[in-house]
């Protein structure tokens, strides 16, 4: 693909996300799609983190734990310390990254299903911890969290309050979409830089990577911390939208779904998580009119897709590229 074509592709994508979608929603009057697409964007961000751990060869079923942690960090800072939400957003991410370093140091030595299982347990540990701690308000959760307010320095508005322009749904959509674009631009850069090259070396053979002098422990931790950072900010954003958080806000099911999003999009493609999330999440919503057959149809379609395209949806283009070359 030429550079010109690539730039055109990126511009087209941006135009669709920031202009096309609002226009189409305006035209069709399907206002409910704003929330659906906001969710897709945020879940795709969390899934991007999972994808990155896949990229270093680890099956991560623990992202729900970090989304929950990020959500609680934001909620607690807003409610108890009176912080502005926008300040808590990066803090939530960084907190999760720090926690993940502590947790990652011992568990990243595990591989394959062993790592997968430990991370699965981690999600449940996060839920039980949230239930047991006083600061998270235990079973009662944290509710009635205010919408994100204005950030200003010396009277100069840096970020307007989320309800400034009246349409909160649109505002959340634009914020989520912008975050998604930034995250995936970062991911794209990461994967196509030498770091991505090193991550692939880890994925394919850790011993060999170590023998050529790659500090595999460090690189694994870095990747896992980035992954958890993304989980944390996605979780915090969801809390801002639902204005509440409970220990059950992110559960094992979410962790599994994040992983499935990556599989479905394709583990070899950096934009796989976006497509995977879109299909899995949006697909469920589209099927809502089928009533009690919803799950049946949803799962049948899912199975068919896997059988037809076991390497993910984006592998549709794989063969073409191979023949073109």
């Amino acid at each position: 693909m030429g550079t010109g074509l690539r730039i055109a592709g990126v511009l087209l994508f941006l135009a669709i996300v920031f202009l096309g979608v609002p226009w189409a929603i305006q035209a069709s009057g399907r206002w409910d799609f704003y929330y659906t697409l906001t969710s897709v964007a945020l879940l795709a961000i969390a899934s991007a983190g999972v994808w990155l751990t896949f990229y270093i060869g680890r099956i991560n079923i623990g992202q729900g734990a970090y989304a929950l942690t990020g959500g609680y960090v934001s909620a607690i800072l807003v409610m108890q310390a009176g912080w502005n939400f926008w300040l808590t957003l990066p803090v939530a991410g960084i907190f999760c990254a720090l926690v993940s370093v502590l947790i990652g140091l011992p568990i990243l030595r595990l591989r394959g299903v062993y790592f997968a299982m430990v991370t699965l347990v981690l999600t449940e540990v996060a839920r039980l911890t949230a239930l047991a701690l006083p600061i998270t308000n235990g079973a009662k959760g944290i509710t009635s969290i205010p919408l994100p307010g204005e950030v200003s320095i010396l009277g100069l508005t840096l970020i307007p309050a989320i309800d400034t322009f009246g349409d909160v749904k649109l505002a959340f959509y634009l914020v989520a979409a912008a975050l998604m674009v930034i995250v995936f631009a970062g991911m794209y850069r990461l994967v196509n830089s030498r770091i991505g090259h090193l991550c692939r070396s880890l994925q394919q053979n850790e011993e060999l990577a170590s023998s050529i002098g790659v500090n595999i422990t460090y690189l694994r931790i870095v990747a896992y911390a980035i992954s958890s950072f993304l989980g944390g900010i996605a979780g915090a954003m969801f809390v801002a939208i639902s204005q509440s958080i409970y220990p059950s806000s992110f559960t094992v099911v979410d962790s599994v779904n994040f992983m499935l999003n990556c599989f479905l999009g394709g583990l070899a493609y950096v934009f796989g998580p976006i497509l995977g999330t879109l299909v899995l999440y949006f697909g469920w919503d589209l099927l809502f009119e089928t009533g009690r057959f919803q799950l049946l149809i949803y799962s049948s379609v899912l199975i068919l897709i896997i059988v037809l395209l076991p390497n993910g949806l984006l592998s549709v283009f794989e063969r073409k590229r191979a023949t073109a070359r």
Partner: protein
Amino acid sequence: MQKRSLLRLAALATLSTAVATVSAVPSARAQNESLKIGFVGVTSGPAAAWGISNVRSMEALAAMLNEEGGVRIGDKTYDVEIVTFDDQKDPKRAIAGMEKMAQEGIHYVVGPNVDDGAAAVRPVAEQNGIIYIPYAFPKELYSPPASNAVLGMVANYQSGPAIYKYLKENEGVETVAFVSANESDPLSQRDSGVAAAKELGLEVVSDNVTYQVDTTDFTPVLTPVIRENPDLLVLSGVAPANAPQLIRSARELGYEGLISTETAQDAQVLSEGAGELANGFISVGGASTPEIASDRMNAFVDRYTKMFGEYNDESNTKVYALQYILDTLAAAPEAVDDVEAFKAAMDGFEAPNPFMKGEDAKLHYVGSSSFGQKRQLAVPLVVNVYRDGAFETLFVAEVD
């Protein structure tokens, strides 16, 4: 190779078309204008029973009403159409469901079934002018400044004191133990139950034993509780699936005291899961026990059974939500697309209760003492006791 990928593309395309077609099939429509009432709650997965009893009671009642010619609201007659959304017990999905309801132009929604979902949909409901009827107990959902949620059943902090008081006075209960699942809703219910029991001067001998909802063997869970030998064992917020197991384990461990819960249960489930060991189990239900069920209630149960094969006793309570919405709309016709009118009507609303025998059985909104405003359906607080496959009414009370 190219052919193969084309084939795949074609297959995918066919698939998505098929999906689109299926999802576009319009639901059956009669000649009356239709009035859409929504449901957002859980109808799949482990907690499916909660939402399904909601959906089915709504669908059965709607079918009855439509067959009778529809519902008269103001000068129009509507057919009731139920629009359901399965949130899979995920608060994020519940928000999406509520957005869907707003999209469909629906202003009255039953659900969600759990605390986290009910809290999460609040912003959407308020932004879009939707009145929703959750089956969740947190007080801030119903207390000012919140005003769009209406509690659909009797909260355990209302029924608990009544039950404990009754048992204290009639059965001489002095000590009580609480067991709950390690999840938000049951734990909150346990905490308020403990507080209520202490208020009544009962001695709480055990209140910190919890179990995972996926527990298959409750013997180890209950062993330390039974050792305290309380007069009353309260299963706080127990899921219908867990109740028979807990009862059975407690009895098999030699426990001889009373067992009660403040949530609705199903007689069939108890009978299959615990058999005669469940005799004497006290729970809270709606109004289908023969002593108080009206003909209308019996007709509803028949209808439900015919449509879905088997009745669920949880629907005794859950059938009220739709009836309340429709009767309140009839009382304030402009509320069909203006929830403020609905809210205004709630304070003075009163209508006959079709599901209960007796002239003085009325539908009206309550909750002033718990929430400071009328944001609760007055569902008869019927305390049942299970005996040999059916419920018997222990006593009936009212919430204010």
